[in-house]
């Protein structure tokens, strides 16, 4: 009976079934196993016995909760840098070899200067050959001063001298770039402890590679135990890694991810948004689709309306635009591809950045049209085309191309409508 009516409360079986999927998705996204276990247990405790929302199936409801919990776990809102009481704020950058400390230090400096601060970069990586030179070159490229004493003095001394220099020069932020080290290298970890006690940083930022696997929880945990991490910079998010390491790091340190590195250029650096990463971690495949469905069931009415108008062949450029916006809302096309079964492999092989640009252009063109033009594209003559092209910063050819693809889409949809009607009448499958 209950099943006939659908809903009711979430049973343990419902929850377990949905969480199995979630568990698999999290492990494939490289979230550390202990973190996955703790997380799924927590969701289970919360979920069993909860009244299922009307518009959702039990599985969808659980996954909606999973998404919310994951966002919470990552801190919900974007986190900001703390500033101490003093005039000069000291930021210490630490991490494993190759995680991206030097690049991140420079990017952070640029980011802070854009916000009106006057950062000084201090080169304390005296171990890796040419690391100091690397920071100097980067600093020069973004026009930010770099303090160095070469690779002879101890890193702790350089750090202290750098902070002194910044205070003397009246610079309000010091960013200390340190050498990469293994979290289990006792001597080098001790060096950082010493540096910490000497320069008393306002923030100790752990640079973590988004592609890190199960080990993330141990790496971050150990850095945190020795130093007390106050924030994380998650690098290489421009890869197609799902970035589950962020959850492991967060769970091991309690510190929020504050920034994300998203490319090789100096300005490829962003404030970290937990909700965006959660979609990516749950990312491709069925799980996200389920959530999207769960969240978008309210939009169903809208879809029905569109369907009705399609049947009547009233599909307009407005609808075209809103379809496009829907697609763009779901994230970069590259990620969307991954959701389609079998398309995962094709990622990276097709250059999708171009189609993204094209979509942006199409949006601009439609936005430059009047209401009448959008509803009845037939009225668009040569003079209107010139106006639209000017208004959207495109060329008349672009406007033509858009109108043509709109016509094609309308034509295609008309056929779909016909086909459906045929089938409903029990007719023969028409030849396409």
């Amino acid at each position, binding site marked *: 009976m209950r099943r006939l009516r659908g809903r009711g409360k979430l049973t343990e079986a419902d929850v377990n079934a949905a969480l199995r999927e979630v568990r*698999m998705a999290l*492990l*494939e*996204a*490289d979230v*550390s*196993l202990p973190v996955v276990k703790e997380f799924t247990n927590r969701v289970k405790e919360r979920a069993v016995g909860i009244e299922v929302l009307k518009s959702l199936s039990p599985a969808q409801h659980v996954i909606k909760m999973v998404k919310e919990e994951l966002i919470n776990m990552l801190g919900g809102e974007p986190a900001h840098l703390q500033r101490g009481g003093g005039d000069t704020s000291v930021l210490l950058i630490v991490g*494993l*070899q*190759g*995680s*991206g400390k030097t690049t991140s230090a420079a990017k952070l400096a640029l980011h802070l200067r854009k916000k009106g601060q006057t950062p000084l970069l201090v080169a304390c990586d005296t171990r*890796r*050959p*040419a*690391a100091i*030179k*690397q920071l*100097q*070159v*980067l600093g020069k*490229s973004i026009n930010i001063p770099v303090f160095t004493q070469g690779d002879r003095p101890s890193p702790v001394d350089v750090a202290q001298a750098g902070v002194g220099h910044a205070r003397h020069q009246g610079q309000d932020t010091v960013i200390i770039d340190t050498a990469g080290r*293994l*979290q*289990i290298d006792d001597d080098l970890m001790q060096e950082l402890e010493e540096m910490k006690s000497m320069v008393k940083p306002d923030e100790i930022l752990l640079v973590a*590679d988004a*592609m*890190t*696997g*199960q*080990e*993330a929880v*141990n*790496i971050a945990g150990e850095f945190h135990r020795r130093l007390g991490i106050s924030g994380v910079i998650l690098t*290489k998010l*421009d*890869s*197609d*890694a*799902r970035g*589950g*390491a962020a959850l492991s790091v967060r769970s091991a340190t309690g510190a929020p991810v504050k920034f994300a590195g998203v490319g*090789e250029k100096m300005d490829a650096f962003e404030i970290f948004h937990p909700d965006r990463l959660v979609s990516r971690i749950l990312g491709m495949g069925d799980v996200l689709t389920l959530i999207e469905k769960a969240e978008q069931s309210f939009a169903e009415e809208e879809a029905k309306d569109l369907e009705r108008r399609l049947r009547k062949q009233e599909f307009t450029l407005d609808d075209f635009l809103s379809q496009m916006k829907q697609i763009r809302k779901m994230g970069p096309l*590259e990620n969307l591809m991954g959701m389609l079964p079998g398309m995962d*492999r094709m*990622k*990276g*092989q097709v*250059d999708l950045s171009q189609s993204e640009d094209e979509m942006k252009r199409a949006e601009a063109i439609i936005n430059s049209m009047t209401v009448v033009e959008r509803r009845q594209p037939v009225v668009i003559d040569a003079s209107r085309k010139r106006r639209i092209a000017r208004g959207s910063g495109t060329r008349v050819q672009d406007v033509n191309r858009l109108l043509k693809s709109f016509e094609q889409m309308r034509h295609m949809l008309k056929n779909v409508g016909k086909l459906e009607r045929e089938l409903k009448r029990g007719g023969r499958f028409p030849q396409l």
Partner: protein
Amino acid sequence: MVFERLRAGLERTRSHMRDMLNTVLSGGRRVDDELFDEIEETMIQADMGFATAHALVEELRQRCRNERITDSEAVMPLIRDVVEDRLRQGTSDLLTDQTPAVIMIVGVNGSGKTTTCAKLAHRFRTDKKRVILGAVDTFRAAAIDQLEVWAQRTGADIIRHQEGSDPAAVAFDAIAAGIARRADAVILDTAGRMHTRSDLMKELGKVRRVAGKALPGAPHEVLLVLDATTGQNAMRQAEEFQSVTELTGIILTKLDGSARGGVVVSIVDQLGIPVKMIGIGEGMDDLRPFDAAEFVEAIFG
């Protein structure tokens, strides 16, 4: 001795995995579903990935059934067998019988390419071979200077252009110099790049093609440098680099941490690309030939 060093380098990994497995397998437990689940979890924690761990455990389950194994202690040797089988596919030595042998080093940013080039150069130099390092990474700030320092320390020659110049041209010149100077090996240090950047991947394809023009048959080795702390994304890296450069092998670096590098099991198994060397420390001698049996032995104890 090699084995001892490897064991030492992998000691932390090893003891960790062994402890976990021993806890799982100890005390005459029954060989049942619960046990297999725990073995699977242990493998997942070694970054073998959900799918591979699952497949391995299914195979293990089958063998335990066939061999009527009822004592959990007897499962250990079978685990070793099953994993080693996967790793053995195509494991082989570096191809260095050509003169010069052209070795191209590729990988994502921060995986340890430049350091690996230095260690490779050191290996050849220890055997009194003549080595040319090609500073093909013309992008990263000070990458050329970093390689220059290593060239001096290892006694290798270096071929370099300006920062920002055409990487393929540096590769060509390095190989030409290798031929002219009768070098035994030319090692090309390429710039790190994300495997998702199609433009940079195309550039890498070009470096490879140009190398073939400088010397037919070159590069003889194209080695992907993989950071052992990397998780499941390593598979994607291998696939993408494979498609533009036809990889001949993998160098697994940073195994001196507590990372386990289990993802190579999936890569070797599914892509058939052998692991050729492993990096087990910061010292110049800490680049070692990969040996499946040793690797598994070191991990599982």
